[in-house]
């Protein structure tokens, strides 16, 4: 269980697809932040992950420093071991914060949508001006300092034609961890989905080529789908489960079962408590059971155990309920699953050692790090 702290609703960008458009004026106070850290330590007395989120969390750098210091003071008292991550649009990244992040071992993830044409189509400032140049520069700076940082990339119907080109661009830039998501809430047409399939097929071929060339990377749509087969039963336990792996805390300290729900507000049924009063277990269980109940028509689908239809957050964003699955998500899963399987079958069939260790050896991250360190 980890905590996502929404430090502010303000943002320095105005991305057109944002599910929580910026609302200036709401920021987390230090008192709420400390209470959230206490709450996290109570929830996770051994190991507590805290994600600084927004809006744009780097608009609240002083608060991040205060909360990290407070968490470390709890850690010194043996209350938990804290790990931190910050997800940022990159604009406010600077050397000073990078140094602080290195000292405190804070993982930094940057949102970038790939090549200029894809990125600037949606990730813009409030006046509509583009951000690609500055984000790319900040990302290079981050990768120089922290080569294992991840990037988040969103694919839209009007940018899908740049998908494979964007992944290649990011890989060449030095990104190894690429988390990709469709903008499921957008209006996708049949033509867009055909293009998406073509782009995934192209990426599948590239995935094989890159792996055979010994390049190490994590490209989420492929890794997740391959893992959904390889892990079998374990994957079903690993995938999205509402309120089971993370809570989100809004600027006022109200708690929600996932990151999209703070937008619903404390009066909504998705508010399950606060960092001061704790979690209403009955309400949480009720939401969890509602989200986990078999869904029509998914219950009869042959790939239901490998599909992301259990993501209540995504369902709520795209259909307005946590129990109905977006047709776009369904189509996406049908496209990516056989392509990812084809990639895995090809590489396994060739007994590609890198592929086998990456997916079958628990020690792979350590081995890979060791190789990088020694090389």
């Amino acid at each position: 269980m980890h905590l996502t702290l929404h430090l502010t609703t303000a943002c320095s960008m105005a991305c057109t697809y944002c599910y929580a458009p910026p609302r200036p004026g709401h920021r987390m106070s230090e008192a709420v932040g400390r209470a959230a850290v206490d709450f996290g330590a109570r929830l996770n007395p051994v190991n507590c992950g805290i994600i600084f989120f927004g809006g744009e969390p780097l608009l609240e750098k002083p608060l991040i420093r205060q909360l990290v210091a407070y968490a470390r003071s709890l850690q010194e008292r043996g209350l938990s071991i804290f790990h931190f991550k910050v997800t940022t649009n990159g604009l406010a990244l600077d050397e000073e914060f990078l140094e602080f992040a290195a000292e405190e071992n804070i993982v930094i993830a940057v949102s970038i949508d790939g090549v200029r044409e894809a990125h600037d189509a949606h990730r813009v400032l409030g006046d509509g001006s583009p951000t690609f140049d500055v984000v790319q520069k900040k990302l290079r700076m981050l990768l120089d300092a922290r080569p294992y940082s991840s990037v988040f990339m969103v694919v839209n119907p009007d940018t899908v034609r740049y998908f494979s080109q964007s992944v290649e661009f990011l890989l060449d830039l030095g990104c190894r961890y690429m988390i990709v998501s469709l903008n499921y809430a957008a209006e996708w047409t049949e033509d867009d989905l055909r293009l998406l399939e073509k782009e995934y097929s192209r990426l599948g071929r590239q995935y094989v080529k890159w792996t055979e060339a010994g390049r190490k990377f994590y490209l989420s749509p492929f890794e997740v789908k391959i893992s959904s087969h390889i892990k079998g039963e374990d994957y079903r336990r690993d995938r999205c489960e509402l309120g089971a792996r993370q809570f989100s805390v809004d600027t006022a300290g109200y708690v929600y079962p996932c990151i999209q729900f703070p937008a619903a507000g404390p009066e909504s049924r998705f508010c399950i408590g606060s960092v001061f009063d704790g979690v209403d277990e009955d309400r949480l269980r009720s939401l969890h059971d509602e989200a986990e109940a078999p869904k029509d028509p998914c219950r009869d689908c042959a790939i239901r155990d490998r599909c992301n239809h259990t993501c209540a957050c995504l369902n709520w964003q795209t259909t307005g309920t946590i129990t109905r699955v977006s047709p776009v998500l369904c189509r996406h899963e049908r496209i990516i699953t056989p392509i990812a399987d084809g990639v895995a079958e090809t590489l396994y069939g060739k007994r590609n050692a890198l592929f086998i260790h990456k997916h079958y050896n628990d020690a792979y991250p350590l081995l890979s790090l060791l190789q990088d360190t020694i090389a």
Partner: protein
Amino acid sequence: MVEAPEPIDSYPSPAYPLRSAVSEDPSLLSSVPSTWTHVREIMGLVSLSAVLASGCSDKPAAGPSTPAVAPATPDGGSAADSAASADASMVAPIFAHGEGRGAIGCIVMSPPVFLSEDEAMQFVIEELAIAGIDITRKNVAWPEIRIKRRLLEWNVVDGDLHDRIVEVDVDPVPLSMDGVDEQRKVAFEFVSERDYRDLGGPSCMSSVQDYDMRGTASNLARCLREGGTGGHRVGVFYDPVVSAVMSGADRLPDEPWKTYHQRMTAPARAEAKDLLRRQVADFVDWLRQQGAL
């Protein structure tokens, strides 16, 4: 806007294994990216992770580990533990084509069709020759590798029949490799019905002898990893064991039994050879990945 489609009726099972395959056959991890092979620390960790993976297995078939002594290295020195660890990557994974399981004896209805040792050896040699591997030496003694004999032991516990593999306290059998290309430093061993027990295949003390060729090949590969290969890259192949159904009712009038037997087992023998060919092809691919070809 796109429409919600109907559920998918059926989806084929992907042709790559579940993660549990590693605990069943830790040799899967023995092949490593070429960029790792020169880093001693990585090779040590790879060996460790393979051991840990095997330790997590709840399958009894692997049996107890078989101690073996490292052979002399090409320069005449004795192979130390670290060298054996480095040699772990010199033994190819078992390429699973064919179940390799069958039984003969009083109650067996579909007898397995075994490939003879000589027939299989010749077949493997010819397949390797296509890839440029010239097996010039046959039945080469590697006496430093000794395989312990094993026994399939049956017990009834609380009314349930349990089996386990135990090592037998008799002199271990020195290994003789079926074929070696000294120039390319490539060797192979084929687990056949004839040398099944000598290679650690568990004997059954009953009127039925059960064969697990693939498991025995895995056991032999582990012995080689532990004992070292003297710098040779080694492939262990196994008889795929394809069964034939022979009731006798389909015997032609006046057809001699020998002819009938040959006719009925021919498809199984052809299938077994095709499976063995795939094992060899995967081994050749592995050698290419290792930079040996």
